């Protein structure tokens, strides 16, 4: 089901000051997608999720889910969370400690007055789906973090909702488990073909899990797009910086040629991916991701965007070297193959493809 959010605002009061948790948010969350709200803490992403599910009462605007208005200031509509027919996985999992696994998972069906036989079948099926079959009688307090997370997921899936909301569901798992669960979650959700709204501050989680990402900042939606779009093509400095490690180089647009936009920067003229909408003379920032910077000891012939610098640091991190190369007053972060041999103080040449140089609005 599609979720439409129109001019939604929510204010909090803290120490007498008004804080805009959500500031006039307009957003369409398409049906049957994994849609991620990504942003730093305090950007309003969890508040937006809680407004959708009905746990927060917004101050103005309208929310409709599958065409039904669940909140509207003008029409004076507010549908209680229990009447919205949604599911949600909480950051703390919110597994009820006084119930066993069966009762935790059966709960949403029990509230919907489903016949007992049907409850038993559906719970069994769902527990199998999340690979927890046989855990029915286990007390909720006797589960590991990963198992609790699956119980929370099973509880969200069991009423076969059209929309599931996730509030940072992986942030309480350790790193390795988090990676596994992320893949699993993606496969569960794509198989089920339901609308999933996912809140996270972890960019890797957002990139690897989502069909669409909305980046939020200061209670507003900054940009919406596919993970690749957001990563490679964003024209916003905040988004480009937040979504991945980035070298941001200040400059001025010099001219547009047939294939590229050329920017005069601190490290020389850079041929960048074409941005015809930015007029020559405009102050811009060029974004180059560390993994697209090629480093060589010798001067690379016929390569565009080359410069010479001094290796400031070079750290072995296992699957790669991470280092910094200084060109004039600018330090560029690089990430190169671990086999490359150079050390601090060496002179190195760098080059990068114009396709990977993005012009950002300042």
């Amino acid at each position, binding site marked *: 089901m599609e979720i439409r959010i129109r001019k939604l605002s929510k204010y909090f009061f803290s120490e007498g000051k008004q804080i805009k948790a959500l500031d006039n948010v307009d957003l369409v969350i398409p049906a049957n997608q994994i849609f991620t709200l990504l942003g730093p803490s305090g950007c309003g992403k969890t508040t937006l999720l809680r407004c959708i599910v009905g746990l927060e009462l917004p101050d103005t605007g309208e929310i409709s889910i599958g065409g039904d208005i669940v909140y509207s200031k003008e029409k004076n509509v507010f549908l*209680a969370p*229990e009447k919205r027919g949604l*599911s949600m996985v*909480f950051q*703390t999992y919110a597994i*009820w400690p006084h*119930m*066993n696994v069966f*009762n935790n998972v059966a709960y949403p069906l029990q*509230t919907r007055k489903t016949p007992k036989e049907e409850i038993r079948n559906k719970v069994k099926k769902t527990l199998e789906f999340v690979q927890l079959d046989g855990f029915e009688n286990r007390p909720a307090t006797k589960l590991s973090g990963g198992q609790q997370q699956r119980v929370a997921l099973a509880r969200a899936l069991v009423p076969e909702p059209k929309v599931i909301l996730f509030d940072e569901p992986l942030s309480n798992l350790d790193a390795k488990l988090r990676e596994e669960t992320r893949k699993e979650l993606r496969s569960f959700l794509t198989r089920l073909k339901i609308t999933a709204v996912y809140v996270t501050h972890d960019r890797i989680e957002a990139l690897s899990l989502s069909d669409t990402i909305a980046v939020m900042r200061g209670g507003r939606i900054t940009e919406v797009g596919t993970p690749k779009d957001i990563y490679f093509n964003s024209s916003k400095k905040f988004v480009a910086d937040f979504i991945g490690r980035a070298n941001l180089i200040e400059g001025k647009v010099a001219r547009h040629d047939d294939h590229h936009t050329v920017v005069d920067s601190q490290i020389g003229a850079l041929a960048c991916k074409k941005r015809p909408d930015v007029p020559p003379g405009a102050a811009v920032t060029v974004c180059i991701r560390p993994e697209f910077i090629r480093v060589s000891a010798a001067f690379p012939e016929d390569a565009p965007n080359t410069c010479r610098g001094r290796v400031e640091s070079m750290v072995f991190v296992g699957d790669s070297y991470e280092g910094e190369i200084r060109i004039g007053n600018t330090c560029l972060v690089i990430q190169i193959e671990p086999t490359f041999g150079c050390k601090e103080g060496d002179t190195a040449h760098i080059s990068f493809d114009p396709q990977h140089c993005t012009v950002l609005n300042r």
Partner: protein
Amino acid sequence: MSKRSALTPSLIIIVGFLTVCPVVMLVLGSFSEGLDAFGNFTLDKYIQSYTNPELADIIINTVIFTIGSAIVATFLALFLAYLNTRTNIPFKFLFRIISIIPMMIPHILFSVSWVLLLNPSNGLINLFLRQIFNLADSPFSIYTLPGMILVEGLLDLPIAYLILAPALAAFDVALEESSKVCGASNLRTLVKVTLPVLRPAILASFILVIVRSLASFAVPSVIGMPGRIYVLATHIYQIIATGFAADYGMAAAVGMSALAASIVLIYLYRYLTSESEKFVTISSRGYRPALIDLKKAKYPLFGIVGILSFVLILLPVLVLFYTSLVPYSMVPSAKAFSLMSWKNWVAVLKDPISLLSVKNSVFLGVVGATVGVILSVFVSYVIVKVRTTASGILESLSFLSFSFPGIVVGVGFMWFFVQTPLYATIWSLLIGYIATYLPYGIRPLTSAFIQIHSHLEESSRVSGGGTFYTLRRVVIPLLIPGIVSGWILMATMYVRELTLSVVLSRPGTEVLAVQIFRFAEDGLWGKLSALGIMMIFISTALVVIASLVGAKLTRVQTEGE
């Protein structure tokens, strides 16, 4: 949303009625001509009660009694808390018992047991000493101010201990260590560093004991009245208890002073506890203080603790049980044992008023605690989870009755109930009990609510459970431990309730404590002791049943429906 928004105002109305009604009625009553002439304005009652020449003595007695009790209780509590938290005294579990068990023994029975031991005509200790030393007169009399202070001090010792022990446990040892590094001895450190830093907690305990002894009725009535030593509480009782001349207007006028003093003291107490919390938060680093080695003083000091626990816990029960079995007061001897019988027990069980009082008290304990806990659940929910300005008002309202002396609340309620058909019914007692002891239910439940993460409720709402469904299936099951302890606290308070009942109870609505009090007035110690032991049995039975039911309910919820 509409259900929830109706909840807070309706609770404010209920709790507001329970706590504010007796006070308003007390004020109005103090300016009225009489119970049957309510609203006819007069200042006579104030003039009459405050020009009474005896009042000066009564106030002096009250001041000596309350401050004396506070000194005894706080000193003993400080001694015990220091030994427990800071020294290597053996058998530390005893300290937990000392701090909890005496609360289970009704104050009136504790007071009576001291009368049985130390009254001048036939107190057991006096009889014993007279026999041994061949004295003509009893060496001790409990019917004196020091006697009252001793017993009240011991009764309030647990409350003082519960304030001081956590303060001492959270004390930053570095403060003491640095004093020792500077060359001070243990004793000097205690006097120069430890006690001054603990001053807010000590003062808080001191003031709370003053408030409690100001409200105390058991000790002043059982020990003070026979010795003609009157304090405010017994003075008020005397005004309303003298048969045909009962004057509730004067009682209300005198009650106003007790109420005012109590409210001022409670505000001082609250200020001091917030101060002492400030002191404590400076330090806590999860660092366990080094224990002071008592060396040779270890066992003598433990002896004192042992004697205290014996006196606080075992002695009253033993004395009562012994007295219930002998025909008249006598020192335990072969002769006494040969004369022992269940006669007093049989007499009590055949006494229709005693049986009625058992029935009434059990009813009030069970029904009152159940209603009180249900109300506490809703009130605590609003206080902890709704958290609006209105719920803040509710919180202040529901803890207000802590600061009202019971007998004064009783007089206020009397003025109210006389105007209604509830007068002289068991329901008037029920309402009065719930009003007075509501904080006993709300305390454990608010702490239980605080421990329930809001996500646990929210996930129920999202799963399709409405407000009341969520309460029933998620919140209440998680609250069961808090509900059980709230129920136990209220039920035991109600079964033993004396102060309020002595005002509100009428023929037909006698309760256990009032009946025991009547026996004490008539000197029927044997029957009193038998009924007293039954009272302890009833409280204990209620506690056990409540704990079992709680455990069973929790199991049902965990294992599924």
